[in-house]
């Protein structure tokens, strides 16, 4: 990689409540303008990684106990969370975390705080959001808590659009979305990335779609990266195919859930 990456994570360790270690020397990088996927099983520490980057760990009694995180060349530890956001690092948190008591439009208004210090009109960005997600436009006066899961996810991404950041951390954007909407949202993610040159770090369970938009992938288990590489290479990896893409059936095709055995092969990287 020639240019300096927009985000660099080096040997980071994270501890919750001074006792529970979750990240154990994790390193990764997001090159400018690229989408990087971060996969891993439940509880591997993906969300924790994102929170460590956006400095939100303290709210959950967590702390980075070792390592460095650099965003656009500066240490993130030196900045407070809202300053990081205003500097262009936007975190779309797991579980959407929309303000359920505010209306849809007020949710977008809240995101304008991320634009403080930026030029350009927020109103134009609102238009853009409503163009990407017409559903939101029809429901803009409704309290967001009453939206369906998918609509809430749209709103969460919409807020990121309003913020106009340089780097978006996306935590499981496909969670609970219909297949069609997943495609649409990922298409929009790809579009945002292409049109606005926004870099993204994408955490996903749906490996197939994640690989469709990302250029590089990391896979983590219990707090550290176990394999990484360009997406093309990862999709050829036997374990990735079986455990993340569900492709390990006979003749390499998709295997059916009806045929699942009651015993499991262990992942190579756990041994």
């Amino acid at each position, binding site marked *: 990689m020639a240019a300096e990456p927009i985000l660099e994570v080096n040997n980071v360790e994270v501890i919750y409540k001074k006792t529970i270690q979750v990240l154990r020397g994790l390193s990764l990088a997001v090159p400018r303008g690229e989408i990087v996927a971060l996969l891993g099983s439940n509880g591997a520490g993906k969300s924790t990684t994102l929170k460590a980057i956006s400095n939100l760990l303290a709210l959950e009694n967590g702390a980075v106990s070792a390592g460095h995180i650099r965003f656009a060349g500066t240490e993130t530890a030196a900045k407070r969370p809202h300053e990081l956001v205003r500097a262009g690092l936007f975190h779309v*948190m797991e579980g959407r975390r929309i303000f359920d008591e505010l209306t849809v439009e007020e*949710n977008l208004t*809240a995101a304008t705080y991320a634009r403080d210090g930026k030029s350009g009109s927020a109103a134009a960005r609102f238009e853009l959001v409503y163009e990407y997600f017409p559903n939101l436009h029809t429901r803009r006066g409704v309290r967001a808590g*009453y939206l369906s899961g998918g609509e809430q996810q749209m709103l969460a991404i919409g*807020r990121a659009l309003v913020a106009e950041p340089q780097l978006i951390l996306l935590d499981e954007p496909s969670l609970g979305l219909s297949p069609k909407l997943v495609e649409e949202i990922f298409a929009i993610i790809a579009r945002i990335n292409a049109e606005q040159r926004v870099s993204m770090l994408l955490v996903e369970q749906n490996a197939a779609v994640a690989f469709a938009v990302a250029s590089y992938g990391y896979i983590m288990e219990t707090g550290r990266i176990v394999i990484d590489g360009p997406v093309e290479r990862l999709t050829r990896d036997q374990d990735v195919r079986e455990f993340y893409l569900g492709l390990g059936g006979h003749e390499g095709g998709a295997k059916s859930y009806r045929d699942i055995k009651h015993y499991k092969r262990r992942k190579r990287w756990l041994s």
Partner: protein
Amino acid sequence: METDWLLLFEVSLAGLGTGGLYALTALAFVVIYKATRVVNLAIGEILMLGAYAFFGLAAGWALPWWAAALGALAVAGLFGAVVERTVIRPMLGESPISVFMVTVGLGSVLIGIVEIVWTADPHRLPEFMPNAPVFIGEAFLAPKIAYSFLVAAVVIAVFVLLFRFWRGGVALRATANDQAAAYSMGINVPGVFSLAWVVACMVAAGAGILVGAIGGISSTMGVFGLSVLVVVIVGGLDSVPGALVGGLLIGLVEALAGIYLGGEYKLLATFTLLIAVLMVRPYGLFGTHEIERL
């Protein structure tokens, strides 16, 4: 007994006047609740602190009344900032019961401190409001009540406008709704917290000066906060218009109950009203309904 319309009118006016003070104090309460989801049971004691600070500055240091009032507001603001920083912020994320008990504790500490510094004896504030009686038509209205009502009305109007037209209103509510998410929108969450506490404590202190001017000050004047609690519950914990309407309503009900039933019925009437309102509208008249979904 024939109805004495003039009395009814005068009593209603007096009730509304007190209601203005309730509304003002309730506003302090609502601001904190809106931004931090803290039910601040110490509001009555903060009001007392404001009144005593004014007393200390005006009677003790012999400052002119306006300087003493500004000083008292500053003291209360500082108090708010310190309390928010040292006590409330560490409680982020704890259960609402815990946080509200913290404010109960704070109230107790304040009472104790005031008693240590100024003893438990009651005092009177120096006079600073015009003394000429106010007549509306034939009806008499105590001047202090009238002027207090004016002050309260102006302050509340300012806040209503602020919440309506200022982006900060959204930031406040967003922060209350989900702190982590508000942070991730670029909202300065600790800043919002501090601001809310500072402003609310100043409003409460202002109310305290007015209340003290009317009824004198003592270490038990915090019970004023109890009526205010009824006001915010009836109006809705997070609603500025609710504070206003609730304040006037409770003021009126207390006044009428006091006259037509007797003083011992005042509290009974307001609390009965409280339960009745809650049975019909569980979130008060204007409070936001909690979203309940599965």
